[in-house]
């Protein structure tokens, strides 16, 4: 990567130049002329480092990055790619904000306009985590993000449309495509593999013992999962942003008050029931917990834990009370790097009695506010002592707290599975939590999509180095399921195997290209808009995903919130590719950048340092 000279050293050189000639020039009165000349900044080629995880960790990301680099180079940008491990990539993007462009999957995906609040609201530019990692600040977007929280029905739909249209033009990140996850699963030991749900814990909890299996139904049974990601064997902290991906393991270990249904509503899970009331546009929810909930260590789970959790998410530092959204942000406040959008909906939360917790939300519609109830509930007796500044800092620009940096092994949650052991880099073993409400109660709870406890006694997760090996393990009956998507390349092998099932489902987590808009020229939205014209999403879907993906122009594509104007119909509706079939039309690309106010010299795109 060619680094442009640092501004400070340049200034120094200029000053030396001025000083050196000043003696001669002073008498002839050229001082002003010199200052005029040095006031003009020099130009250099636009350079751009594109970061992504390599092929072992993600079958698509790095190939997308390489395609981008090729297209950007065609337009005269000095683009280069850099492979980083997943942990390093997330650390540089989410915590250090030390990146130019990255390619990867959003986490979590955006199912509702409010999902964009955390990603893009300007109030989060200085925070670390999935809250505005791009450094994007746009007042009209801020207004829309606020408005979608309060508006209802058609008015909300309009706001969501205008929001997405602004984003499609200003491009803080580019949604490339929604992949179709491909997984391999064995039919011999477990049945009821539902393709749609293996990126959430429900897909695993709904499994049944295979009736024609060799194994006795009463015998101990272990679900053998394979992943290509070591991080779940090393760190089980739901707040450690650089270690989390889809969060399936966290869903096993930690329960939330509510879960999101397929049509986007929030229904009770750990909660028994809740009632919403609205006073002066601010909704209040009274949530009653299920009876006799306990943590994995046997302690009782009470309303106090719930109140504590939201206070912790808002500020992992200090012993703040029950008032998450304090009016004055305190300088030593360290918000959790995950679930920021959810916790920002909550104004105040307190335990009314051990089984009842009251949420007072910020100004919002009740159905938006309810999404806050999907944050995992954490035990106060474990996490209270972690609200101190961590002794070894992982976050570079501020005090990290123990709550964020701890590996949280062993994790104490209240979810349907509890921790048994881990061997960092190799295995993670969980077992059924017998005191979980799913296991305990009769399967009469019609509300939850899962009936009864898991069909397996243990879940053993093993890490292998690549998707090809992961697939082979399932084919060879060394594992029951690849818990991470193995990519289109391994699909034929699954298809050929006996007893293995190919599970393909559209992921709602898109691949995106994220830009650090703190850095010129990426800070210029006109520049980004032009740059996005160089991304041929259709070609990426065709060549990189082998067709196993849907190209998209908005992160909300595939939901009811996508406006007609951003519907993908053969080509990008807002920023069409400047070329054809994956080949950039160099003349058109240059013309576009010239229109945007940039210059070319010897085919190199220039910008002011």
């Amino acid at each position: 990567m060619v680094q442009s000279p640092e501004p400070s050293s340049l200034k120094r050189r200029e000053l030396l130049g001025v000083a050196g000639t000043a003696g001669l020039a002073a008498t002839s009165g050229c001082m002003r002329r010199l200052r005029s000349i040095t006031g003009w900044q020099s130009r250099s080629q636009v350079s751009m480092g594109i970061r992504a995880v390599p092929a072992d960790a993600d079958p698509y990301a790095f190939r997308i990055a390489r395609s981008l680099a090729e297209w950007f180079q065609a337009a005269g940008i000095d683009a280069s790619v850099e492979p980083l491990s997943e942990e390093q990539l997330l650390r540089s993007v989410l915590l250090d904000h030390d990146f130019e462009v990255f390619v990867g999957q959003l986490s979590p995906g955006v199912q509702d306009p409010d999902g964009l609040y955390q990603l893009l609201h300007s109030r989060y530019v200085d925070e670390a985590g999935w809250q505005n990692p791009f450094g994007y600040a746009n007042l009209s977007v801020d207004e829309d993000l606020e408005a979608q929280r309060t508006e209802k029905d058609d008015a909300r739909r309009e706001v969501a449309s205008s929001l997405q249209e602004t984003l499609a033009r200003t491009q803080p990140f580019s949604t490339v495509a929604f992949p179709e996850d491909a997984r391999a699963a064995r039919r011999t030991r477990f049945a009821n593999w539902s393709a749609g749900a293996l990126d959430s814990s429900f897909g695993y909890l709904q499994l049944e013992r295979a009736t024609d299996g060799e194994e006795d139904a009463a015998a101990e049974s272990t679900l053998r999962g394979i992943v290509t990601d070591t991080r779940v064997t090393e760190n089980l902290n739901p707040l450690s942003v650089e270690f989390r991906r889809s969060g399936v393991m966290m869903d096993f270990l930690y329960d939330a008050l509510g879960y999101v249904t397929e049509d986007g509503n929030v229904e009770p899970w750990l909660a028994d029931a809740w009632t919403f009331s609205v006073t002066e546009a601010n909704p209040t929810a009274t949530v009653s917990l299920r009876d006799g909930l306990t943590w994995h260590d046997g302690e009782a789970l009470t309303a106090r834990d719930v109140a504590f959790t939201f206070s912790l998410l808002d500020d992992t530092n200090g012993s703040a009370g029950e008032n998450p959204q304090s009016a004055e942000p305190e300088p030593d406040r360290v918000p959790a790097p995950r679930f920021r959008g959810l916790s920002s909906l909550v104004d105040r939360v307190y335990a009314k009695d051990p089984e009842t917790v009251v949420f007072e939300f910020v100004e919002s519609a009740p159905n938006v506010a309810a999404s806050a109830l999907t944050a995992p509930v954490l035990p106060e007796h474990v996490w209270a002592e972690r609200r101190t500044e961590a002794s070894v800092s992982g976050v570079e620009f501020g005090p990290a707290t123990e709550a964020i940096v701890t590996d949280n092994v062993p994790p104490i949650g209240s979810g349907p599975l509890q921790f048994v052991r881990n061997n960092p880099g190799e295995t993670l073993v969980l077992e059924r939590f017998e005191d979980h409400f799913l296991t305990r109660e009769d399967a009469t709870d019609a509300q939850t999509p899962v009936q009864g406890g898991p069909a397996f006694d243990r879940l053993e997760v093993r890490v292998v180095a690549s998707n090809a090996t992961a697939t082979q393990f399932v084919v060879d009956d060394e594992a029951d399921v690849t818990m991470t998507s193995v990519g289109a390349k391994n699909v034929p092998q699954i298809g050929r195997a006996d007893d293995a099932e190919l599970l393909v489902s559209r992921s709602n987590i898109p691949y995106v290209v994220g830009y650090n808009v703190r850095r010129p020229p990426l800070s210029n939205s006109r520049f980004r808009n032009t740059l996005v014209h160089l991304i041929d999403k259709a070609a990426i879907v065709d060549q990189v995903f082998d067709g196993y993906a849907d190209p998209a122009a908005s992160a909300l594509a595939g939901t009811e919130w996508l406006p007609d104007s951003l519907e993908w119909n053969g080509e990008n509706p807002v920023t069409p590719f400047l070329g054809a079939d994956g080949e950039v039309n160099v003349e058109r690309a240059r013309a576009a950048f010239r229109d945007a106010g940039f210059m070319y010299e010897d085919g190199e795109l220039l910008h002011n340092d």
Partner: protein
Amino acid sequence: MSAIVDVLSSLTAVVLALHVLAVLGIVGRDKLSLARTTVRRNVTRSWGVFVVLAVVLALNKIVRDVGVEISWLIGARITGFIYAIEGTFVASVQSLATPELTWYFGWMYVYGYVFLLTFPVVAYAVEPDWRPLRELLVAYALNYGVGVVCYVFFVAYGPRNFMPELVESLLYVHWPDVQTLTSRVNRNTNVFPSLHTSLSVTVALLARRHRSAYPRWFPVAVLVAASIAIATVYLGIHWLTDVVAGVGLAVGSVAFARRYVERDLLEENEPVAPPGRTVDDD
């Protein structure tokens, strides 16, 4: 787990069989008949080097387990740089791939490699001249030592990770179980230099230097070593740059080992070998 057991047991069986063949064909009965005394003598004389090698191997394992983290912190990220030097060379090598070649190079990479590294230890242990064994062990220790330092200071992904659209992980696609053996997860940033290459070339260089002891071993070692070096590139695991660096490391290690053993010799001033035995200088 059974995949790794399968791979390990077939590896053990094949390498043992190769050893038997090689002992019969290369070492010969004369040396075998004297083996008991020569081995004892050679091992007694070189036990210190054995210990050093064992320590280096143990350190190697520890550093490779914990070093990845340190490596990201202090190491130079050179994948893009390597790519800038050699471009898509590995892809053009792979464009010649056939199933037979993949089978051959995969076999050499896994079985040939283990045989190539272990056989000289046996052969030189029964050799009346004690120097080859000591040189071999010193050179091995150096290879591993320098290699692990490089792995900490350089972060590089192999071509199969960097340009997956052009370079296939031939070994792992055609023989997935092997991955449980050869590549520990999270170590895929350790490609510079290629230790497969450096250790193989080390064996070949010493085979040449001591070819008067085992004339038949020299061509075998060269063939296997060359196959392994090519295999690392052909299989998409290493860059050409890694292989070149590996050859450099091998040459350096052997040169150092030679001097080290010569110096020992001067200090100890002991008889080296039965009269009539010479060392081929290169």
